[in-house]
C-alpha cells in the first residue's frame, strides 16, 4: 500500500510537470 502511495505521488508530480510544460510551450499562452 505504501509503495502504491509513493507511486501515486510520483504520478501526480509527473502530471504536474507535464501540465506545466505543456502550458509553457503552447503558443498563445499568456504568462501574465
Amino acid at each position, binding site marked *: 500500500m505504501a509503495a502504491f*502511495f509513493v507511486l501515486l505521488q510520483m504520478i*501526480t*508530480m509527473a*502530471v*504536474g510537470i507535464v501540465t*506545466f510544460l505543456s*502550458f509553457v510551450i503552447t503558443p*498563445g499562452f*499568456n504568462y*501574465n
Partner: protein
Amino acid sequence: MSELKLKTNAEPTIFNKEMVIGTLIAPVIGTIIGGYIGKSRMKDEMEHGKTVSENPSFWNKDTLIGGLAGNFVAYIGVKVALAAITLAALTPIPALLALAAVSAAAVGSIVVGAYIGGKAGESRLKAEYEEAKKQTIVEHIGRTTSPEIAKAVEYSMEHNKEWGKQVAEDRLLAAAQEQAR
C-alpha cells in the same frame, strides 16, 4: 494588438503565484524556487511596470494554477479512493472499474480547475488592461495639459463607466456648435 504598461505598487514577496505553482508541482523545492522566481518578477514589475495586453487570453497563468490545483485535488481523491478500494477488499473486476472511475474523475478535476482558473485570469487580465489604460491616459493629460485636469479625468474614469462616450459626445457637440457659428 495593443500593449500597455501597468504600474504596480505590490511589494515584492516570496508569497506569490509562482510559489503556488512551484508548490503544486513539487512541494518544498518547487516552493522555494517558485517563490524566488515570483519575487524577482514582482521586483521587475515594480521597476518597469507590468506588460498588459488588450486581448485577455483564457490561456494564462491562472489557468495553469487551476489545472495544477485540480491535479493536487485529484491526488488526494485518488489516495482516499485507493484506501477505500483496499478496505472494501473488492474482487478484481469491480476494483478495476472503481479505479477507472477514479482516474476519470482525476482527469476531470484538472480540466475543471484549469477552466475556473482560466476564466478568473481572463477577467483579471481585462481589469488590468483597463487600469493600465486609465494610468496611461491620466499620465498623458497630466504631462501635456495640467495635473488638475488629469485628476478630474481620473475621477470621471473611476466613477463613470461611459466617460469616454461622454467626452466624445461633448467634443462632437462643441465642433458642431463651432461650425454653426
